[in-house]
């Protein structure tokens, strides 16, 4: 495929028969929601692990203090 025909194909692909703005907005939104889902789920898990560790350390310290 020559460069020119590739560019032509690409322009047509983006244009989507005139429906480009609708299609790419819909796909872009979907990509954004996927990204949000991934990031927020990971952030939730990381912060849960951190807080759980803090609780563990705190309980270990208080147990150490109680010991005579």
């Amino acid at each position: 495929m020559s460069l020119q025909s590739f560019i032509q194909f690409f322009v047509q692909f983006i244009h989507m028969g005139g429906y480009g703005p609708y299609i790419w907005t819909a796909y872009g939104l979907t990509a954004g929601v996927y990204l949000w889902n991934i990031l927020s789920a990971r952030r939730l898990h990381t912060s849960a692990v951190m807080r759980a560790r803090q609780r563990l350390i705190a309980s270990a310290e208080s147990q150490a203090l109680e010991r005579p």
Partner: protein
Amino acid sequence: MATWVWFHKLASPPHIYRIAGRLTLLFTVPGVLALIVGLYGGLVTAPADYQQGDSFRIIYVHAPAAWLSLLCYTAMAIAAAVGLVWRMKVAHAFAAATAPIGASFALVCLVSGSLWGRPMWGTWWVWDARLTSQLVLFFLYLGYMALRHSFDDLSRADRASGVLAVIGLVNVPIIHYSVYWWSTLHQGSTVLRAGGPSMPPSMLVPLLLCFFAYTCCYGALVCVRLRAEVLNRERSPNWLSLNA
């Protein structure tokens, strides 16, 4: 009884935490692969529709999002019911982990549908039975999450929001059958339809791949969120390995 061992094992936080961790990767790999192939198929290899031209390609993000929003709600309501009846914390944790995912895909369904409706139907939005019941689903998710937020006590939040989730389950069949029970602007189902899918394989295969991909991605996402929910409910998770 031996047959119930797996059920009681599911209720054990360290067990579920470990299983969810392993399942995450198991869901992610096929999910991402199918999503790439499916969307490529929908955007590039599938032919344009004889009536709608290229605009019908929105179906590849729209219909699986609709499916996932219904699947998530059903899973959430069943988990909430199990949590309410058997007082199973892990079930409530699963329901709570599912809600934001379901809500986000209900939103994708509504907005992508609107972006499809504008050029084809000639309107962004109509108040027909299908669109309205799907909007109600989105608000049910929001209501469920808001209700959880309004309680400081987790077990009370679980119970109150669980009842709401179970009640809202009534809306799920209404959404699916709305296009058959009432006259609507929205068309009938293409895939889950009496007489088989009304699409040639060149269009259908990428769509089925997208359905599969969305479902796998939900599996992976809910596993990560479930681990967080389970951890948050443990006062001292001694089983948590500190270097994990």
